[in-house]
């Protein structure tokens, strides 16, 4: 289906739903295509192609609500799908808060071009993709006698959505994505350490293609011979790639759903200090070429650029229409776009060099956070740093604490963000973190 055909189908479905008893309807038609190639130890390990379609319909029937989706796109079946879904919806309980968004809040089609689609994806042949993966593989294959296995992976995707609602929204959104990654396993006296590296971008020609294999190898080899150290309170330096693991409970606690379910340790804390003054986070949907950019959210609401946390003070939650109505709060978009963290002055190396004694974390292993209380505990791996030097890898340790306290201990933000990521967050240094080890 081309875009116009998707709009036509969406409108037909809406008309049919309204005729069949729904008072309001929203329809989205999603399509995605992707391909993946993996080269392992010189051979193509897998070649895969995927092509998906789906139609999702949200029905508002006599104050009752259901959401339904199917990948069977035959028109006659879709008509019956709509009718049966409406009939089933009638058996649910009424919910006065279920209503389509206020049309005044919809995106009006006046946004700047976000540059999300690389048209070259249409013409890229399998040989080119294989060569990209092979180059990553060849950077490291056989380059060190400790290597057990090298895998290099190329993947790309093209996804698009058409969203139409019965109260006036209609819009489309699409993006491409390219990823190149390498993972390396090595033989060691203790275990078989492995690590990976990846680069990603919305545009193939903007993606860094060199150094991926080398970086994966380097990261693998430096993990050989890990030791846990004594339990205690240490400064914790978080590598930019993994900061998001520790920040995600904060973002979960910002959602209207979590607040309403009493599973948010941030509920009621708007305009209060929830983190150190060094934390300023802006949600910015308007950055060209950035994967989190978008003009409208999943309901069609115009995406707003907004401060989430300013100098440690909580400024905005993520509120969708439904939980906004239930909580008596204005909708602000129910999800995040690009997360932009205010940067500090120094890079990661400089931060390591000035660390007297601490743990530099490069990976997380399991763990969780209690949304109601903010209590968390995570497994980690990384390095012991003493007097600015990396001494040895550490593993088999946990960090434990509470989200309402740990972010107060943020003492430095680096200046190193990851290009091509929606999380534009630098490496961070936090003080006084409870580590458990020996």
């Amino acid at each position, binding site marked *: 289906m081309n875009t116009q055909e998707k709009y036509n189908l969406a409108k037909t479905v809406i008309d049919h739903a309204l005729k069949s008893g729904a008072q309001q309807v929203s329809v989205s038609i999603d399509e995605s295509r992707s391909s993946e190639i993996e080269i*392992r130890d010189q051979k*193509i*390990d*897998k*070649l*895969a*192609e*995927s*092509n*998906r*379609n789906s139609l999702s319909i949200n029905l508002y029937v006599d104050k*009752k609500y*259901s*959401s*339904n*989706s*199917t*990948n*069977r796109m035959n028109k006659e*079946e879709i008509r*019956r799908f709509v009718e*049966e879904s409406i009939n*089933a919806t009638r058996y*649910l*309980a009424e*919910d006065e808060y279920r209503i389509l968004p206020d049309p005044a809040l919809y995106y009006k089609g006046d946004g700047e071009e976000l540059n999300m689609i690389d048209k070259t994806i249409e013409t890229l042949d399998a040989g080119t993709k294989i060569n990209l993966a092979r180059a990553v593989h060849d950077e490291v294959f056989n380059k060190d006698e400790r290597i*057990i*296995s090298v895998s290099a992976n190329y993947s790309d995707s093209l996804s698009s959505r058409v969203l139409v609602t019965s109260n006036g929204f209609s819009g489309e959104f699409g993006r491409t994505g390219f990823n190149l990654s390498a993972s390396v*396993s090595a033989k060691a006296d203790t*275990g*078989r350490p492995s690590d990976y590296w990846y680069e990603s971008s919305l545009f193939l020609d903007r993606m860094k293609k060199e150094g991926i294999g080398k970086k994966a190898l380097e990261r693998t080899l430096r993990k050989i011979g890990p030791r*846990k150290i004594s*339990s205690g*309170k240490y400064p914790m330096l978080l590598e930019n790639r993994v900061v998001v693991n520790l920040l995600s409970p904060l973002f979960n606690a910002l959602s209207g759903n979590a607040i309403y*379910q*009493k599973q948010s340790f941030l509920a009621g804390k708007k305009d209060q200090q929830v983190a150190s003054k060094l934390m300023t986070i802006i949600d910015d949907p308007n950055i060209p070429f950035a994967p989190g950019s978008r003009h409208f959210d999943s309901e069609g609401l115009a995406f707003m650029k907004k401060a989430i946390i300013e100098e440690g003070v909580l400024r905005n939650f993520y509120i969708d229409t439904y939980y906004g109505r239930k909580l008596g709060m204005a909708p602000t978009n129910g999800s995040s776009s690009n997360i932009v963290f205010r940067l500090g002055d120094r890079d990661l190396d400089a931060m390591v060099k000035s660390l007297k004694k601490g743990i530099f974390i490069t*990976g997380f*292993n*399991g*763990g*969780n956070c*209690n949304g*109601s*209380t903010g*209590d*968390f*505990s*995570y*497994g980690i*791996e990384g390095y012991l740093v003493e007097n600015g030097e990396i001494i040895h890898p550490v*593993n*088999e*340790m*946990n960090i*434990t604490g509470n989200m309402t306290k740990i972010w107060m201990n943020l003492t430095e933000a680096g200046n190193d963000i990851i290009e091509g990521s929606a999380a534009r967050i630098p490496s961070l240094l936090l003080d006084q973190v*409870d*580590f*458990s*080890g*020996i």
Partner: protein
Amino acid sequence: MLYKRRDFIKISGITAAGSLIVPSLLQSCKGTALSGGVSKYLEHFEVTPELLKKVILTAMSKGGDYADLYFEHTINNYSNLEDGKVNQASSNIAYGVGIRVLKGDQTGYAFTEIITPEAMLKAAGTAASIANDTGKSITENITEFTSPNLYPVVTTWEDTSIREKIPFLERLNEKIFALDNKVTKVNASIGDTTSYIMFYNSEGLLACDYRPLVYISGTSVMEKDGRTENASVSRSARKGAEFLTNELVDNMAQDVVAKTNLQFLAGKPKAGEMEVVMSAGESGILLHEAIGHAFEADFNRKKTSIFSDKLNKKVAEDFITIVDDGTLPSDRGSLNFDDEGNATENTVIVRNGILSSYLHDRISAAYYNVKPTGNGRRQSFRFMPVPRMRSTRMENGPHKKEEIIASVRNGVYVDNFSNGQVNIGAGDFTFFVKAGYLIENGKLTMPIKDINIIGNGPQALADIVMAGDDAKLADGTWTCGKAGQSVPVTLGLPTVKVRKLVVGGVNA
């Protein structure tokens, strides 16, 4: 009944009223000639044996060694209670066929969501390109798989209206509120899935399966003196609507209220290494994370697992036997056949302390020259199968629960978990403890909660120094993720003591 249906293809996920689906579809394939059951599946997916063979021939046209087709039609329903009312439902229908070609240990994969000859032949051509040679002939004979019928269904989910699910969610809500006046919020949901699976491969094997799956879960939130705590409970099985009973719901309500109450008393242990006693039942997460994944044979044939050189070696005390079982009746992790047409079995992975088998898919079984163990699984037709666990558990050991607890001076007893993870190569694994107790001088003392425990797989396995005679299978809703694919599993354990693990906690 508002909607009597004669159509094969279920159009809507959420069922308004009972709907009629051809009952013979409930049968799995049996017999040698093409049976009635098989014919129904062929009709269901609108294909003929001739077309299946043609697609396979195309898949093998570039010299693949083997090819298979995995047809799937899955109907998913979800109903949710919030604020005392079941006011949200959703449904999803997924339909398509995945086509896989193997050349040695290399895989070509493509799928189509439109089952027409043209679309299937095109996808077969894509998958075929993993090989680069001339085509091979395939067998003309079709062998029907004889199904063990592990999950008979009394009332199908397709015949179960949403109206019939609502009372159970309402009852769960009411029971939880009635049990404790600190309860301020309850959420409850039921999710049911029905899958029609048809499998055909280049060896002429034709297998069909009707796979039901259901879970019911509840979360209670309590408030007391300005403090908010929550806990959740969940049960799951491969059963039809007969799974939902008042007794089940009442039992869940008691369970979740007790768990939430315990949270108010709980604190954090002191950080560090200590003895850990794992309770019988869902502590099987220890096996799943510490060794289960590392026993999956794809990691081992690639030599990236920490257990790659441990086959037939002593890895645990003599009294330890661990199995991964795909044949438990109505179990969430069971399958009549795995997702690449192999019979499932009860695979002994550690026998009396010796690592006796990895968990194999077709590729790894060929690599190790052993019989497949029926562990080749996939999330759906959109994914290629890889070795996965089913129901992983430890058999009874020689000790008593009481003596195990009494043997600990200073440690923790853990019995409720939310999630875990493992790093296959390094062997480090974790599980997150939602509830447990300190053990001081052989007695359970202060409750603990929300702490992570981390250890190293081979070391932890060797460090299981006591195992109880109270082996128990957990009936929770465990879902295992690997390579971007989720599959339902279960797990179990008797009470065991691990000599030493690193327990998350606080430092003085």
